[in-house]
């Protein structure tokens, strides 16, 4: 049987998630229940959304270092404006998404490195978040809280949400023509240009879509935590990048996998729980988390080699 390279790309993340999950169930049988799964994975939902957003940026060969501060900013908007006067809140979100699109345009037009532009933007988002919520507080809109704490029959919300995110983005990125164009820009933007497409528009679109997913991530996060502070999601910058890579994506070449990205986010979240169930001292936890990442990436590199060797034959 011949596996396509896309399938191979997905096997490693899915396998590592399964192994980790089995280990967690073995150590903590209580986790093997409706409530248990929900507690394990509900905080992975906003991370998965942020990872998808990061994946869109990485699909066009860029990197977003402002993801964490932008999600924090969105969380602050959700806990203040979106809750008190939804119309203004939605307007702010539309403005933020437009800002993301504009960022894409500027990066493309001036041929600026995305790392520099997004790093700069991260201070702007961080500043705006502090202006909005100088001290932690705010309140989650009732509907966001309702969605994030809902209890669908049989399958916990966290799992349903992850599957929905994975399926929707899979169709958006892997099946739609817009998705093909985004990945095409990452792969070889000149050929996309020569084929008569406006690369600038595609890039702006990819950034705007990323902005939308980051907004959803902020709303989901506040739905879980019930309130926000200006530093609430700073970890998401690195988590989202790690999630994309863990899920089989690459930094360049438009090689991304939406399902993999969601699995990557779940794996990262589970790795933290796994380490805390193992009672590893916190001094070692960051190192242990890094070790898990390195093992998974090494496995992938190994499979990539195999894949290449097959092709050369």
């Amino acid at each position: 049987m011949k596996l396509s390279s896309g399938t191979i790309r997905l096997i490693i993340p899915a396998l590592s998630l399964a192994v980790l999950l089995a280990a967690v169930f073995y150590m903590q049988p209580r986790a093997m229940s409706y409530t248990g799964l929900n507690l394990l994975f509900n905080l992975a939902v906003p991370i998965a959304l942020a990872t998808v957003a990061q994946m869109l940026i990485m699909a066009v060969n860029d990197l977003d270092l402002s993801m964490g501060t932008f999600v924090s900013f969105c969380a602050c908007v959700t806990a203040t404006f979106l809750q008190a006067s939804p119309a203004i809140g939605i307007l702010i979100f539309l403005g933020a998404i437009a800002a993301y699109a504009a960022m894409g345009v500027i990066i493309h037009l001036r041929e600026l490195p995305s790392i520099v532009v997004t790093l700069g933007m991260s201070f702007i988002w961080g500043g705006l978040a502090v202006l909005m919520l100088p001290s932690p507080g705010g309140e989650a809109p009732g509907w966001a809280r309702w969605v994030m704490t809902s209890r669908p029959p049989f399958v916990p919300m966290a799992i349903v949400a992850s599957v929905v995110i994975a399926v929707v983005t899979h169709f958006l990125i892997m099946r739609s023509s817009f998705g093909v164009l985004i990945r095409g820009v990452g792969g070889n933007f000149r050929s996309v240009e020569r084929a008569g497409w406006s690369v600038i528009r595609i890039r702006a679109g990819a950034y705007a879509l990323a902005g939308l997913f980051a907004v959803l991530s902020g709303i989901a996060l506040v739905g879980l935590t019930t309130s926000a502070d200006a530093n609430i999601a700073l970890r998401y910058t690195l988590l989202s990048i790690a999630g994309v890579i863990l899920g089989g994506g690459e930094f360049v070449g438009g090689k991304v996998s939406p399902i993999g990205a969601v699995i990557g986010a779940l794996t990262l979240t589970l790795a933290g729980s796994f380490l805390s169930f193992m009672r590893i001292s916190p001094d070692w936890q960051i190192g242990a988390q890094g070790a898990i990442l390195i093992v998974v990436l090494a496995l992938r590199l190994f499979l990539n080699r195999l894949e290449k060797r097959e092709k050369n034959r």
Partner: protein
Amino acid sequence: MTIGKMLFASVAIACIAGPVSALADTAEKKIALSNNYAGNSWRQAMLTSWDKITKEAVEKGVVAAADPFTTAENQATEQAAQIQNLILQGYDAIVVNAASPTALNGAIKEACDAGITVVSFDGIVTEPCAWRIAVDFKAMGESQIEYLAKKMPNGGNLLEIRGLAGVSVDDEIHAGIQAGVEKNPQFKIVGSVNGDWAQDVAQRAVAGILPSLPEVAAVVTQGGDGYGAAQAFAAANRPTPTIVMGNREDELVWWKSQKDKDGYETMSVSIAPGVSTLAFWVAQQILDGKEVKKDLVVPFLRIDQDNLEANLANTQKGGVANVEYSLEDAQKVIEAAK
């Protein structure tokens, strides 16, 4: 096993065990400490105190377990995940020093809904279902001015060293100092700098502002900054004012050397890291079925001229003066709140 079956089993066990121990017993209960940060001397002392007191309690069979957990990155989302893991691990109570007063509320609510007692201290949480052991930082600021008013009834100029800008603790101590100065108008704050609760930062900041100041009678501080201030005054060849200390070992050592040299007088005040052990006993009392008010106030630890030596002897090198609380202390605090 499903949650339902487990609940049923535990209810059954409780029914059987109930009549034997008429007093609600906590010997089977497990308590966890969820801590957000371990990177300074105060937090290290806090964890050491927790270890010491809870180990004794576990050996005596007061509780079944009391395990500390610390997050690596001092981030609210990470601690929320940690608390959700603790729920899964089946703890009966979680004692929290929170990274954020509000961002953990979702996870805390999950814990309460699962029937877990949550007690927050130092970094407290606003979720109504949790207990709070707060320090009255405002009173701590005010007590400094009260002490100075007694020591120098004629008043004088004050230099205020503040903490880390934008942190609520800094605001509260500052508010207390302001309130004290309003009540005692013979004092006047002539300068204010941010010392960030660190000796080196405080020394630089004070050295920077000193040339522009008139004679300073006293320095009011927030802890961790008194020794640096003293160094700055010495370097500028200015007479050493009365510097209120913050219970750090280096500050107490300096105070002792000055006291031995020329009878230097001051006081020292801060929150004891052992407050984690108070939170432990409060959690134990709640599990024991005691009626406890949701908001408790912990006294701060004050060192005066006469008990300086005793406190210094008990303080580790590079550490913070500390008290560990006993069950009786916790009961007193609970009584006082009623």
